[in-house]
């Protein structure tokens, strides 16, 4: 069994393809959509969690890439620049997934990449701008 959070980027020519349908029907994967940003004739972005058999998962990734989609690991999409973080904790009530937490009683901020759903709310909620993204169309 594989369980992996991914970001799929669609070129504008591919946004109308029924990608999820093929992932389920042809590769027997379970799909949990975390966030989708798909608009007609524009580059699209889909964040999802895929789970299924190892071989099916590998074949599905090959197929996605063959279709012209860019596949990235969701974990690395939002990064915590610890040097900029002042450990104020303002992010901790804004982050909806519990990825950014204020540990008590230390009162220090921690970022758990695995829980991040790339909602990007932290990017501007952090006064010190310690949360960063590699996604071009973020902001």
């Amino acid at each position, binding site marked *: 069994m594989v369980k992996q959070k991914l970001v799929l980027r669609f070129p504008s020519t591919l946004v109308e393809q029924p990608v999820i349908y093929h992932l389920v029907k042809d590769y027997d994967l379970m799909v949990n959509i975390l966030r989708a940003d798909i608009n007609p004739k524009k580059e699209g972005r889909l964040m999802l969690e895929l789970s299924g058999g190892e071989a099916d998962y590998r074949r599905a990734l090959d197929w996605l890439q063959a279709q012209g989609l860019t596949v990235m690991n969701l974990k690395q999409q939002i990064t915590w620049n610890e040097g900029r973080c002042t450990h104020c904790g303002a992010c901790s009530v804004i982050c909806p997934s519990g990825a950014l937490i204020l540990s*008590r009683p230390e009162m220090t901020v921690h970022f758990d990449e695995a829980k991040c759903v790339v909602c990007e709310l932290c990017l501007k909620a952090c006064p010190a701008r310690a949360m960063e993204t590699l996604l071009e169309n973020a902001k």
Partner: protein
Amino acid sequence: MGVQRTYEEINAKIKSGQAVVLTAEEVIGLVEEKGIAEAAASVDVVTTGTFGPMCSSGVFLNFGHPQPRIKMNEVYLNGVPAYSGVAAVDAYLGATAIPLSDPGNRNYPGAFNYGGGHVIEALVAGREIRLEASSYGTDCYPLKKIETVFRLSEINEATLFNPRNAYQNYNVAVNRGDKTIYTYMGILKPRLGNANYSSAGQLSPLLNDPLLKTIGIGTRIFLGGGIGYVAWHGTQHNPGVERGDNGVPRYPAGTLAVIGDLKQMQPRWLRGLSFLGYGVTLQVGLGIPIPILSEEIMAYCAVNDDAILAPVVDYSRSYPYREGGNLGLVSYAQLKSGEISVNGTRVPTAPLSSYAGAREIAATLKEWIRAGKFTLAVPAAPLPSVEAGITFKTLPQRHPEEGGF
């Protein structure tokens, strides 16, 4: 009566490396265990700290004269305007200043990515700063325009002067409205979605000397990672608010104006901040040593988060429209637990002031004192306290032509 100490005695112990110094957090446990009398007998100094956003901050700069000389009329530092209505090459850069090109809240909520606070951080970090200045030209100051770059070490003076820092207690901000609001207290989600607070509580300088019995004009402090001084009471200083039996104010009360040489400070403790939909500010690291002159002073320093209360204020109506009132008082112990109860609703809390930073500042100041590098300054004059009878003023809105006097 108990133990009595003078500043001179404490400083003699500091210089001989024998002073006993504890942070305001460490002393709580000592007093609980040994009692006030014994704690006062054994401890010479208690150190405090706070590391929060402090908008009323800024730096006086003197750039030196170019050749020919200039009387700067408009000054921009990395595009951020500085006030130049002082002498020729003097200016004051405020923490909340934003570039003229910043769209503000026209694209609501504005991002406010860069401003005075960030320029101050860049200055302290020794980074190159772009200076643009213009003038109308005079016989003595003929140059009309200059564009150049400089670093902090190349100018005559950079004096951090913050008219209001170290608020003694502060509001807990909530939003009772139906839409998210963007405030200097951070993002407040609708229908009591979160409660934001901004005080170090038991570590905060003025909460450990609630009646200002030791902190006065000339008190030497930790400021921005270097050494600074208390210059005056801060703006909006309001010692007359309601207090608990422990002397601790239940509402925002005293404030400090502080001063220090920016050239010996550290960027780690002066950080430019961007508050979504509100603006730019500076996060200031500040710590004050409190001399244990008597048991009374030790009792104040032993205050803990359970004994410090703050009002919960609605920033959707009550604060902006000055309607007054609050939604009850909560303790910093409750706030730091991560959840408070407001009118029966459980509300998650978040700080804006870094408690981890406050703790590190208090520990750093303790080390400076223990190492004999930092002695205590005897205040030249006290700050106004409760007996000063200060009444807090608001601004009347009169039609200038009606007069009314």
